[in-house]
């Protein structure tokens, strides 16, 4: 029998994982880099002009958005090339496998599950899908727009 896809059934408590460690490393390196950039920028600005706080914030946000966009774009590409779409649909809407996004399950759980699946999903080990790949795919899943509500779709109410 075919059970309806139900993301809730895959939910389990998260725990520390290599993916979490990867992110910690990224955060530390990013912080050091950001600090260096900020110091250099501050020195330069002290020399040339005193910037406003608003301008600094906008620059930071733009940089973050650019980084997110790159991650999302890469994740979208990997979602197809690694075959995630085959079971979960090109819009991650679900198919043979459950719906994955938007509003995906915690990354820590997804990372754990794809490395050691317990149901019908094949394993994606670190050898084939890196932690960074997974993070980018996750960023793509998080970026997906909310679908319309079923109650607002006339074709689903007849």
């Amino acid at each position: 029998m075919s059970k309806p896809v139900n993301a809730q059934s895959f939910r389990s408590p998260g725990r520390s994982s290599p993916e979490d460690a990867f992110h910690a490393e990224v955060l530390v390196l990013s912080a050091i880099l950001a600090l260096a950039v900020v110091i250099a920028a501050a020195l330069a600005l002290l020399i040339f002009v005193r910037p406003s706080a608003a301008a600094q914030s906008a620059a930071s946000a733009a940089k973050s958005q650019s980084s997110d966009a790159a991650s999302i774009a890469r994740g979208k590409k990997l979602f197809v090339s690694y075959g995630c779409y085959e079971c979960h649909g090109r819009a991650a809407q679900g198919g043979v496998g459950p719906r994955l996004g938007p509003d995906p399950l915690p990354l820590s759980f997804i990372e754990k599950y794809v490395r050691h699946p317990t149901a019908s999903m094949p394993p994606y080990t670190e050898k084939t899908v890196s932690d960074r790949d997974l993070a980018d795919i996750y960023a793509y899943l998080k970026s997906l727009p909310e679908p319309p509500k079923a109650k607002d779709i006339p074709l689903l109410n007849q």
Partner: protein
Amino acid sequence: MAKSKKTSVDRRSFLKNATVGAAALAATPVTAATAVPIPQPSRPRNAAAPLPPVSRRAEAEAAAAAANPGPNSDPITVDHPGSDFMVDAFKAAGFEYLCSNPGNSFRSLHESFINYGANKNPEFITCCHEESAVGMAHGYFKIEGKPLLVCVHGTVGVQHASMAIYDAFCDRVPVVVVLGNFGDAQTRASFVNWTHSAQDPAELIRDFVKWDDQPATLQGFAESVMRAYRVAMTPPYMPVALVCNTDLQEFPLPSNPALRVPALTLDRPPQGDSGSVQQTAQWLVAAENPVIVADRAARTPAGLALMIELVETLQAAVIDRNGRMNFPTRHPLNQTERGGSAIGEADVILGLELTDFYGIVNAYYGDVYPRTRSLTKPGVKLISINSNDLYLKSNYQDFQRYQAENLAIAADAEATLPSLIEAVKKLLTDDRKRMFQDRGAKLAAAHQRIFAQNRDLAANGWDASPISTARLSAEIWNQIRNEDWSFVSNCQFVSRWPLRLWDFNKYYHYIGGEGGYGVGYGAPASVGAALANRKHGRLTVSIQNDGDLMFGPGVLWTAAHHRIPLLIVMHNNRAYHQEVMEVQRMADVHERGITRAGIGTTLVDPAIDYGKLAQSMGMHGSAPIADPGDLAPALREAIAVVKSGEPALVNVVTQPR
């Protein structure tokens, strides 16, 4: 050589004698399913005018040969061949259509069908492949409840047909397949005849037909036609095969007043014994959470009504495995979409004509080393009513893993349901009725929750391009829900969305799947089902898998040529998608090349234009549709074509599943 010479002489002698004898005979097709005498001299009813002799020269040669018999005096015309009598037998059995791709190993039978038999009952349906012919018969049966006749060419034709025969076998569908053959080596007219001949033509398919025969006489042939029909139509239904040798077809009908077409008598399907039925009723009535699982339980429309009566009497949960239309999808007691939960809660499980009882109560997991785990709680009672236990074949393993039930009843489920319902009703008390009502209310609430959940899930990817299979299904439903519709393709490949969203409540609303999961079933089976639906005026709809259609696209021409109205909505995911996933799975398990699963599994570069393919066959075909907003108008346009009596295809570029 001496034997060869004798045979040749015998044949000439036979022909001479037979020609004289046959001259007194003519054609009267048998239409009643009763014993009839040998045909009398009159033209068949509804038949075309008798054909003129081949030529005046031929007439002259025949006259000269008759006047002066000698070494070259074989007659060159046959007034009334044995194949005419064969047509009498097929007509008496009541075949409505004959699906076939022509072959000269049954050329005389072919000619008798269309001229002596007036191409009516059966009417010749021209097929472009033997697999299509059998596939059409497969789909036709599941709507009409009667087998079709299929004629296939010697050796090559039966090999083409074998895949579809296997699907019909696995799906427990009766088809009567006639295999042409040049049985007598001395009457093979060319080297090609030799390659189309076999000592035992049915050997190739014997593992997946229920019965076969190679009659040596016309009387034997007529009796075997009736036996073939009866055997095929006795549960468990299966295909049967009759070898039809050319000599028997083409030689003149002998002057034999004892030659008769026997009456067709069908077996009554076997019912479960009274003691077992009573035990089943006791367990069901006493159960707290009985679950009824049905696969091919409803053999006929009456089976659907009986299922509803049993289930409503018990207020039990139903899981429909959808081998047939066993239970309405929107019935509140239908728990199919929460089947795993229902199985886990059950204390009694009644399996009706299940293909795989083991797979119902166990879950498979693991890839390279598959394992199973039980889904049931301790102490559950398992009951099976299954006609499959009455007839098993050894070689092909479609009988599935062995399951030890508490009570296994080797009988036909539909035939057993009336006595089971009666036994259940006799055991009802007011207390049990109250308990049943409470149970039914809980099941109805669970059904409603799952139905709403499915609608929510269908909204995901609603505007996606390629088009989601949920959107595709919802758009089709919107166009057909107020029609008298019949959905004739397997839902498994579109994530079962039609079964999850539509209101299936009539027997012809759904016909199940392939049986053997042989790709290439879908297109011909849907055309065959549409052929059966045509006289009932139903709007027949299929969601057609692209890879399946490419196995035998010629069936589109058959639909166009014979004006078979059918709405074909392509599920064009541009891949043999199951195999994409299977190869992907292996790459993942082998930890290499996970981006390469599309090699050998996809249908891209170039993308196939199914609309143009349909147009090339003479039918309506749309441009590729990838924007969901374009779907409704394309469906409306195609449905208008179908309502005018023609097939139409809408080419939809879809999500994988």
